[in-house]
């Protein structure tokens, strides 16, 4: 075991040696530095290894042969080992990254860098207050020196602000130190902890001064302008190290020093952390420049760390797990991000579009973004999970709200940035070059992120239960991304098929139903992918990622697994959605609503978790505390995915602009995930001992209004895919409403709609998508008369809309019939009427869909279009076959479903007699109606066909036109603003209140951010003033009253 003192010794020694041996050249110095850093890393990681895998105990290292307080001592414990390993690793990688930048400045830069890393190590390890001050100053000086490796005025200004600010902070620490010494006679932290300083006034002030210095080092909002400038102004390679290593050291310093004050400061630290976390992320929202954005984000993460530290009493033993998770993710991802910023020389966020010229970089960026927001499988996901669970278990609901709000704000700007990177117009004439020494550290970091994420999961019992196989499949697909689409598609389909085959036996009932929808639906929609040519870069991994999430939801036995699957699914679907041509803003709003929903779910789960002995999903069935809140939050979270009214605004754009085969995936399949969640919550509510009928009542109204709103909005769309998207909103409203009824009939209706919507919406979206691919426009008024060119597509749409509209004998009617019975049985008449009225409204948009696209006048430029691709027709007609079977023999599905629902809803209100269904108030037979209507239809058709067998085939303009003739198809086709009259009657219902509300909210957030950030005037002196004022204000808040 190498003594940690050698870390210091080696660094100092080599530093001096380089000074002495300067003649040997810059490269030599550099390599020597890297070797030293490697040695330091080795030492600290050896300790780390010993702590975790051996039974090493914490060791004090004494210097100068005396014991404290006479001499300085260092402590090497597991935490110190961890932190210093982190710092050294980052130091080493940073050294590699900055190798040539240092080289250009001469060998002394290496020395400074070495001293910088060394000083941070000492800050971690030292137990002596004065020593802490000294090395803090050393690190500040070194930082200020290293800032100058970036050329230009900005770095100089930033460096000056930095050095003067840190000097003031250090001075305060020094004053505090000397006071502490004055009152205790010792500089040793351990002694200070023991001596109970806070009992005397002077001691209080000493502690205040020490802690305020430590807090200021953490760059608390708003006294952190200097910190921002350093992140932004200095070389990004170095900013990364500051953001990661210095932050780690600062955090640990605060952690160490906090013990001096006992627990009395926890609360303040938490509040400061919360303010910083939310404040920094809020200001980030308004930010347009990449570097400064990262600076805000870094500070936000520091705030989060402070928050965690302040809430350590809530966390207990899990503190380190949470901190390590957050810290590690932040460290790895943020460092990587800074370095990426250093490589991609784009200033504004919009300019980041250039990054997709090198797709691998986009992958890296995506990894970092998702890691920072806390998506699985990255460590922060698990850390956040544990954090929130522990907070809830101890009643820290406000803190949960704070954390989730801050994280949400963070998500806003990160995803906007990422959206720009993926989709913004790339018309910039500058490019970026990649050099191996710069990219290698980033790749290493990324790999570490994934590995550590996996390990973090394995670290806990719950995490070990997560099934990572689908994720590995996703990674394999990433690796195979260079293959042509045909091969990848086959691999994906086979993979999903095999997975389904193996998982099939283990599922039953509800899970089986949804798994069939997810997997079979997935395979069918993937078949449509054969229609695409080329590589379709990046499509398959993300599609499979979504399906991995979906199947994860189904397989989940524990809440963590469930949430894991949920987040994976969200991530995958986000990537799928953003692939659309104009879908950048829609993907952003989708992601934001998803993130908000996910946080609501997280909060809901955390409340559900209180007082539970088990972590399995069955806790939903037995929520003990605040059940209204828990279920309410869960339902809200799930409803964001089902796009209920008010939180639906992401859906039309997201689905409407997505690619042709993605729309069915995200509409017919993905939305069902939300439904699955709603069902889980409702099952829980049905079993709950509390009376939750008010919640279901609200849910029922939400569902009903969603139906009305979705359908009426769909009527006035000009864009075919948006029309279908609004229709999806309406259909999901039906489903939510049906499940909210909470009777057997209601649920049967719900399941019927789930199955139906899956089939017909997949058919419609696939068909319309394929048509769009052929005709090259979404606008219905630009199409028309396509029945002549694509009869098969027409038949598919015809059956699809007939089914959707609920006209007998197709399966849509099954749902309507059940609906009537369920509504009347339940007594929800007015909601029911709204729903049925909306059913009538649905006709309008359905007719519009088929009339304006397939009927009417064929447009000139579509005279030669071909039938839609065979690869679309295969899944479409497979689904149609399913639809017809379900229509003709509904009892085959509904009977077992009814039996299944009886497990949850004991009333047995539907009786089957062969193909005949009876409820208390009505009766109906699917097959009988089908047969009757079918035979009548056939007979009439034959008769008419016979009598008109000599009919002349005429062309599109051979119509009576009041003695005139049509001029052009475009002017003869009734399509644009087709329901103008209806609009005059119902326009009050189409006012986009939700959009206005959310726009207003967005404005509000932006205005708040824009207003607040003006405190960062850029004037160094103002920043000093902030610090001083901050100290004064904090003084009065914390100890002012007790003196």
């Amino acid at each position, binding site marked *: 075991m190498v003594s940690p003192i050698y870390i210091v010794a080696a660094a100092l020694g080599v530093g001096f040696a380089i000074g002495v041996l300067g003649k040997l050249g810059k490269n030599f110095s550099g390599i020597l530095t890297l070797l030293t850093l490697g040695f330091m890393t080795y030492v600290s990681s050896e300790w780390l290894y010993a702590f975790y895998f051996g039974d090493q105990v914490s060791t004090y290292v004494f210097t100068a042969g005396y014991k404290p307080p006479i001499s300085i001592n260092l402590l090497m414990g597991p935490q110190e080992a961890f932190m210093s390993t982190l710092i050294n690793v980052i130091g080493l990688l940073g050294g590699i990254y900055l190798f040539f930048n240092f080289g250009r400045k001469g060998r002394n830069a290496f020395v400074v860098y070495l001293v910088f890393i060394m000083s941070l190590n000492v800050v971690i390890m030292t137990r002596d207050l004065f020593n802490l001050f000294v090395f803090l100053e050393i690190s500040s000086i070194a930082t200020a020196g290293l800032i100058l490796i970036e050329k230009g005025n900005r770095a100089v200004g930033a460096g000056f602000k930095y050095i003067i600010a840190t000097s003031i902070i250090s001075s305060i620490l020094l004053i505090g130190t000397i006071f502490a010494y004055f009152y205790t006679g010792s500089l040793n932290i351990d002694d200070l902890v023991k001596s109970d300083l806070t009992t005397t006034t002077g001691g209080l002030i000493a502690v205040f001064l020490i802690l305020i210095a430590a807090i200021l080092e953490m760059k608390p909002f708003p006294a952190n302008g200097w910190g921002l400038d350093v992140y932004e102004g200095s070389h990004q390679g170095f900013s990364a190290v500051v953001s990661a290593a210095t932050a780690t050291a600062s955090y640990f310093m605060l952690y160490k020093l906090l013990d001096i004050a006992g627990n009395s400061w926890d609360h303040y630290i938490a509040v400061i952390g919360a303010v910083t976390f939310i404040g920094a992320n809020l200001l980030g929202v308004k930010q347009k420049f990449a570097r400064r954005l990262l600076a805000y984000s870094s500070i936000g993460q520091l705030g989060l760390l402070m928050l965690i530290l302040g809430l350590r009493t809530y966390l207990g033993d899990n503190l380190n797990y949470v901190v390590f998770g957050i810290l590690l993710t932040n460290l790895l991802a943020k460092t990587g991000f800074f370095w990426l910023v250093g490589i991609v020389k784009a200033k504004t966020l919009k300019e980041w579009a250039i990054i997709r010229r090198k797709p691998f970089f986009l992958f890296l960026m995506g990894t970092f973004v998702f890691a920072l927001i806390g998506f699985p499988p990255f460590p922060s996901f698990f850390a956040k999970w544990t954090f929130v669970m522990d907070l809830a278990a101890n009643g820290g609901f406000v803190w949960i709200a704070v954390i989730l709000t801050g994280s949400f704000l963070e998500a806003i700007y990160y995803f906007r940035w990422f959206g720009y990177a993926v989709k913004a117009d790339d018309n910039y004439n500058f490019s970026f070059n990649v050099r191996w020494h710069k990219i290698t550290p980033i790749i290493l970091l990324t790999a570490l992120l994934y590995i550590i994420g996996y390990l973090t999961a394995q670290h806990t019992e719950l995490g070990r239960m997560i099934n990572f196989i689908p994720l590995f499949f996703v990674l394999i697909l990433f690796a195979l991304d260079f293959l042509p689409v045909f091969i990848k598609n086959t691999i994906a389909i086979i993979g999903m098929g095999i997975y389904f085959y193996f998982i099939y036996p283990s599922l039953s009932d509800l899970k089986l139903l949804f798994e069939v929808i997810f997997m079979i639906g997935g395979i069918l929609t993937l078949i449509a992918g054969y229609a695409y040519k080329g590589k379709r870069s990046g499509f398959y991994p993300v599609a499979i990622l979504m399906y991995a999430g979906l199947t994860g939801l189904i397989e989940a036995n524990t809440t963590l697994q469930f949430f894991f699957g949920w987040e994976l699914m969200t991530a995958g679907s986000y990537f799928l959605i953003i692939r659309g041509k104009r879908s950048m803003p829609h993907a952003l709003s989708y992601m934001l609503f998803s993130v908000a929903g996910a946080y609501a779910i997280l909060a809901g789960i955390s409340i559900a978790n209180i007082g539970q002995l088990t972590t399995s999903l069955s806790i939903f069935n037995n929520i003990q505390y605040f059940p209204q809140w828990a279920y309410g939050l869960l339902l809200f979270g799930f409803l964001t995915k089902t796009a209920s009214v008010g939180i639906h605004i992401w859906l039309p754009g997201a689905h409407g602009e997505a690619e042709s085969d993605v729309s069915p995936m995200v509409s017919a399949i993905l939305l069902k995930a939300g439904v699955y969640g709603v069902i889980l919550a409702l099952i829980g509510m049905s079993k709950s001992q509390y009376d939750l009928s008010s919640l279901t009542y609200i849910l029922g109204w939400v569902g009903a209004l969603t139906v009305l709103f979705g359908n009426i909005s769909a009527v006035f769309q000009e864009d075919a895919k948006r029309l279908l998207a609004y229709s999806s909103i309406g259909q999901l409203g039906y489903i939510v409403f049906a499940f909210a009824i909470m009777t057997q009939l209601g649920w049967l209706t719900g399941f019927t709609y789930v199955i139906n919507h899956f089939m017909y919406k997949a058919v419609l979206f696939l068909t319309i998508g394929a048509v769009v691919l052929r005709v090259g426009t979404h606008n219905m008024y630009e199409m028309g008369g396509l029945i002549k060119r694509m009869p098969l597509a027409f038949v598919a749409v015809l059956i699809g809309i007939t089914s959707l509209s609920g006209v007998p004998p197709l399966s849509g009617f099954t749902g309507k019939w059940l609906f009537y019975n369920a509504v009347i049985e339940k007594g929800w008449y007015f909601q029911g009427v709204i729903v049925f009225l909306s059913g009538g409204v649905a006709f309008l948009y359905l007719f519009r869909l088929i009339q304006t696209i397939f009927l009417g006048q064929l447009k000139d430029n579509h005279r030669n279009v071909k039938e839609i691709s065979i690869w679309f027709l295969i899944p479409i007609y497979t689904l149609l076959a399913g639809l017809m079977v379900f229509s003709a023999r509904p009892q085959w599905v509904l009977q077992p479903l009814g039996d299944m629902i009886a497990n949850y809803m004991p009333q047995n209100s539907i009786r089957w007699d062969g193909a005949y269904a009876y409820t208390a108030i009505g009766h109906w037979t699917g097959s009988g109606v089908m047969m009757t209507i079918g035979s009548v239809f056939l007979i009439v058709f034959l008769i008419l066909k016979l009598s008109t067998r000599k009919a002349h085939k005429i062309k599109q303009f051979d119509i009576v*036109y009041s003695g005139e003739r049509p001029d052009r198809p475009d002017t003869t086709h009734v399509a644009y603003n087709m329901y103008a009259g209806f609009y005059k009657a119902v326009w009050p219902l189409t006012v986009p209140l939700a959009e206005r509300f959310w726009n207003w909210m967005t404005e509000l957030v932006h205005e708040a951010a824009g207003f607040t950030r003006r405190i960062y005037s850029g004037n160094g002196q103002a920043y000093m003033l902030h610090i001083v004022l901050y100290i004064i204000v904090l003084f009065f808040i914390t100890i002012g009253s007790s003196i």
Partner: protein
Amino acid sequence: MNIYVKLAYTLLGFFLVLNWGLLMSATLRKIVARVAGRHGIPFYQPWIDLLKNIGVRTTLSHGFMFYLGPVFRFTGAVGMFLFMPALFGSDMWSNFSFEGDIVLILYFQLFGMLGMAIGAGEGGHPHSAIGIARGLAQHAAIEIPMTLGIISLAIQYHTLSFTDIVAAQQGGIANWTIFTNPIAGVTLLLAALGAMGHSPFNLVKAPNEIPIGPPTEYHGTYLGVLMSSGVVLHVMEAALFMNLLFGGATNWVEFIIKTFLINFYSVFVGVVFPRFKIEQSVVWFFKVPMALGILAILIYSF
């Protein structure tokens, strides 16, 4: 009962209804003529028109769906007949009503409408699309009083089955729904005005404005089929309200009288009031009929 016998009776019943429908339309037109002081058409005119249409030699086709339009429409009309019991208490004339209840009828009305809409759409004539767009909008509005009324009835009788609802109204005029549940009855009658499609709610075909809307391109045999389904639909719409509100019918004479009167009622209103514009028509249903419907439910839900 043997299914073939049943089939035979059903066919016979349909034949009866078809002829009654033709006669009824002639009679109603004659009544309108007399109101205007004219002599009016001969009572057999519809049959002749039908014959003439079948005898038209030139047949044109805009495409496959153009055929299917009338087929859908006719099937819709036949279905309306099949799924509703023609006469109460008669096993022979109950048709196929065992296959479904009111909900089936409510949605089956749309079958013909949708098919017709699509068939007419393939004709490519702008007036078809305009007419259908109006029709659908109006239908969506009619849905409000219709659903409210029917739900009110369903609450009242605890059933959605025609047979049961009619059974509950037997035993004298005082037992008819229109008297036992007058508010729902009025609501449904107002909805009936829209459903029958006479003036003021006849803007779907709107003669003189968009020639005759959806069937603009239909001629000859197609038109014959459409005409026959039209008259059957008129009878069966009336029969629907007869069953719901006026105690159904136990014999054909009663059936004929009641359906005639219900049709007469809507024609009567039509003669008096001029045509609505589409937004007026939609808004009209949002006002009084909706308020009455809500009242009808409120009465029964407490």
